[in-house]
């Protein structure tokens, strides 16, 4: 969905994605380290552009690029989509970050801020490929409720995989916010040191 929702954090920003980001998205999605965890893509830039253009026409779908506040360097993507008819609940995902990025806590924090404080949702949920242990752990540690395992939730190429579902409700959001805020601030402090 075409939108103008920008969220600013300590060191990272969420800004609306556009067709100009297709090459970056394609590079993230075709990286070898994420194979087996995502729906396969064609690898063609034109297909990725078309997908983003389709997304821009789809209501109830917010898709962002995670970028460094300092210089606008793109570090990842995430999205909020499948908004339910009563506008109370949506799923979040499409969460990909460059290897070594410190943007995980802050990008998740900003996504939840968008969901609860900007869009007024009552709940967000996410489904993670069950073998993606680090992301499952991230959600557990962020204070999300693990609501179940969904057998055969995803078909990735020729492989059927289970998903772990997590949920965060608005009443629990302050707990998760405070927890992620600490790590986001620490990540920003590290990034402020610069590089070798």
């Amino acid at each position, binding site marked *: 969905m075409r939108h103008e929702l920008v969220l600013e954090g300590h060191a990272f920003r969420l800004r609306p994605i556009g067709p100009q980001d297709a090459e970056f998205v394609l590079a993230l999605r075709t990286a070898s380290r994420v194979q087996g965890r995502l729906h396969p893509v064609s690898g063609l830039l034109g297909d990725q552009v078309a997908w983003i253009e389709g997304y821009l026409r789809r209501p109830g779908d917010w898709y962002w690029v995670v970028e460094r506040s300092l210089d606008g360097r793109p570090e990842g993507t995430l999205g909020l989509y499948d908004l339910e008819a009563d506008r109370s609940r949506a799923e979040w995902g499409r969460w990909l970050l460059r290897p*070594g990025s410190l943007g995980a806590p802050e990008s998740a924090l900003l996504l939840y801020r968008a969901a609860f404080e900007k869009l007024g949702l009552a709940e967000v949920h996410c489904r993670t490929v069950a073998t993606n*242990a*680090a992301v499952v*752990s991230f959600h557990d*540690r962020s204070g999300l409720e693990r609501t179940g395992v969904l057998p055969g939730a995803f078909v990735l190429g020729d492989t059927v995989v289970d998903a772990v579902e997590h949920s965060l409700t608005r009443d629990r959001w302050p707990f998760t916010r405070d927890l992620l805020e600490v790590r986001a601030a*620490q990540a920003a402090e*590290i990034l402020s*040191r610069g*590089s*070798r």
Partner: protein
Amino acid sequence: MDYRPAPDLRARVRETLGVVLGRPIEPGDPFFRDDQPDWDSLKHIELVFALEGALGVRFEADELGELTDVEAIAGLAERHGAT
């Protein structure tokens, strides 16, 4: 030159990882991040600060991806002057 951190440095790395991740790490266990499901990105940031405190070093932002196991952490810490 082949960097071989002193055994006591590796012991402090193991101890710090063990405290943060909540389980003892035996000598000789390389303790690779990829093998530890709970060593997620939140825990990694926590570990950076714990390791810096325990080892008396300060890592650069673009070095954090190198903190992948006991030996790699000890080697990087030694290059920052830890003994």
